[in-house]
């Protein structure tokens, strides 16, 4: 008998008399703090976890990003995929900042100073970005370089986790990454250190 059969048989035998409750409907999604508009809530939650939020006007996102990266002396950027980043790529190149394309091998991204990606959704409840890998390449660019800039359209803000999970396309994308602030640890004497394996700085540009 295969391990599969063995395990399933054990489970079936164990549950012969089991009467579990019916599956409750999905989530009680009372958003934790319901006051305020989505963008304000998103910004507040993002800042509370150490992320930065730049509120760019319509069409001004690319310039805002380039200004910020230039101020931080960034010289090489790993670009994620997606049409909205074309303007950003062009602006970066005009500024003399080198760009690695989304098709670059992830191992090459270790030399980049920053990663710039799209974010498909934002969650106001927690200040979280939702990166859908079917929609655009972003996994390595948002992880490997020490600075991550995410371009989030403000009409893509959702109230809470339930809304975000419901919003995911079907079939579910092969990789969905939720990002809430920069990477962190408290493993050494409980002292908070920001910037471990993921980025140390997270900047969300609301466009």
């Amino acid at each position, binding site marked *: 008998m*295969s*391990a*599969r059969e*063995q*395990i*399933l048989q*054990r489970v*079936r*035998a*164990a549950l012969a008399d*089991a*009467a579990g*409750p*019916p*599956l*409750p409907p*999905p*989530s*009680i*999604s009372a958003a*934790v*703090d319901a006051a305020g508009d989505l963008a304000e809530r998103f910004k507040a939650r993002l800042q509370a*976890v150490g992320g930065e939020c730049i509120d760019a006007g319509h069409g001004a996102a690319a310039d805002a990003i380039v200004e910020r990266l230039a101020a931080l002396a960034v010289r090489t950027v790993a670009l994620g995929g997606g049409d909205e980043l074309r303007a950003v790529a062009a602006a970066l190149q005009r500024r003399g900042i080198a760009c690695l394309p*989304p*098709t670059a091998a*992830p*191992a090459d991204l*270790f030399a980049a100073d920053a990663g710039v990606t799209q974010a498909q959704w934002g969650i106001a409840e927690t200040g979280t970005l939702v990166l859908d*890998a079917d929609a655009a*390449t972003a*996994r390595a660019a948002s*992880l490997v370089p020490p600075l991550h800039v995410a371009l989030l359209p403000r009409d893509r803000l959702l109230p*809470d*986790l*339930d809304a975000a*999970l*419901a919003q995911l396309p079907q*079939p*579910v994308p*092969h*990789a*969905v*990454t*939720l*990002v*809430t602030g*920069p*990477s962190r640890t*408290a*493993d*050494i*004497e*409980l*002292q908070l*250190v920001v*910037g*471990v*394996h*993921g*980025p140390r700085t997270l900047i969300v540009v609301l466009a």
Partner: protein
Amino acid sequence: MSEHLPMERFDRNALDALAMPGQRAALRAATELFGERRAAALQRAPAFDAWRDHARAVKDHVLANLHRYLEQFEAAATARGTRVHWAADAAMACDIVAGIARAAGARTVVKSKSMTTEEIGLNDALAAAGIDAVETDLGEWIVQLAREVPFHIVVPAIHKTRAQIGTILHAATGVAADADARELTRAARAALRERFRTAAVGVTGANFAVAATGSILILENEGNARMCTTLPRVHVAVVGIEKLVPRLQDLAVFLRLLPRSGTGQDLTTYQSILTGPRPASASEGPTELHVVLLDNGRTRMLPQRVTRQALACIRCGACLNACPVYQQVGGHAYGSVYPGPIGAVITPQLVDLGRARQLPFASSLCGACRDVCPVRIDIPELLLHLRAEVTQAGGAVPGGARRRLQALAFAAFAFAMAGPRRYRVATALVRAADRWLPWLVRRLPPLSHWHRGRELPRLARRPFRALWQERP
């Protein structure tokens, strides 16, 4: 090779732990901090109790229908290109993972923090197969370098001072031994980045598995799990069969409960929901994704309702932080991958009742664990159930002679309490022996044990029932 202390000697391990003031101070700081943060998070989340009920209902439903959800998961995952393996026990799981690593030509694998992989002893098994498994969670890496086992579910190296960690990381990376936490972290980051960049295989666990979509969910703060699941071309996840939830939507309530319960965070920094290897259209991510579904004793806990509830555990660590015993002795004393209150009830079942026979008794039954458990596991109920199992075990569980003595003592107690006359005789006898109490206290175990650290109460010269007789 890192080894656990023997769980059979919890009593001695605990004594040793009590004699380590530095460790006790670190333990106190950690458990107090997490307790305070959890309380603060709950203040901001008035719906918390409703979430707990909801989460428990989901788990109860899944566990009562586990075979159906396992089959559903396998079908959905396979349809997305995941290779699903089944492992009846630890040895089988290790063989599967080693086989995958060998087939990938890997001499090194990078690992994210996974208690399930510790449970099966994966690192040792891989080492025996000539494969080096590098822990990448900072605390886990420190513990691995120190050749120890984790001390706490969430902060594995919390028992170590910065100076001790500095010494360990100095040897591994050359960083100054007296560097501060930030520099030490930076040094670890640099050293492990090299591993991430070159590893062909990443091994993780999973916090949850979604039956409807064949997805797995991994929560973390550092980013190392994302590294292990994005850069290597092969990703293997070892997942206990109890980790299933039915639908993607069901993840929300658990995402609300786990971080708040464990560390007081509203959400951990990263969640990765992974469904299959990279499709042809993607340019990054593993080309092979394997999920190893692990039994290893979990099916033993399924038949009875009282034990099945422990499979609802989401490994948040809240019960550890709240437990007055864990707060004093820490994680090593339990001698198990799973310490603290939840460890005391699942170790006897996953590992062996005989070896773990002390653990259900290492509790004052205060119930703080049940108070904080996000899925409302009634740990005290389970502790009592396991105590009865141990006392009723025959030769299968070592220590039979001692148990027979205890059984005799309790039979005598029950006999004495069974009727008023016997009670009067028994208590009169004890009262008569009161004169020899100072002598007895040094020699008779229950009394001498009390006497370690406490003055002994004396029996009242006249019991209440005599005084009641004489009331005006």
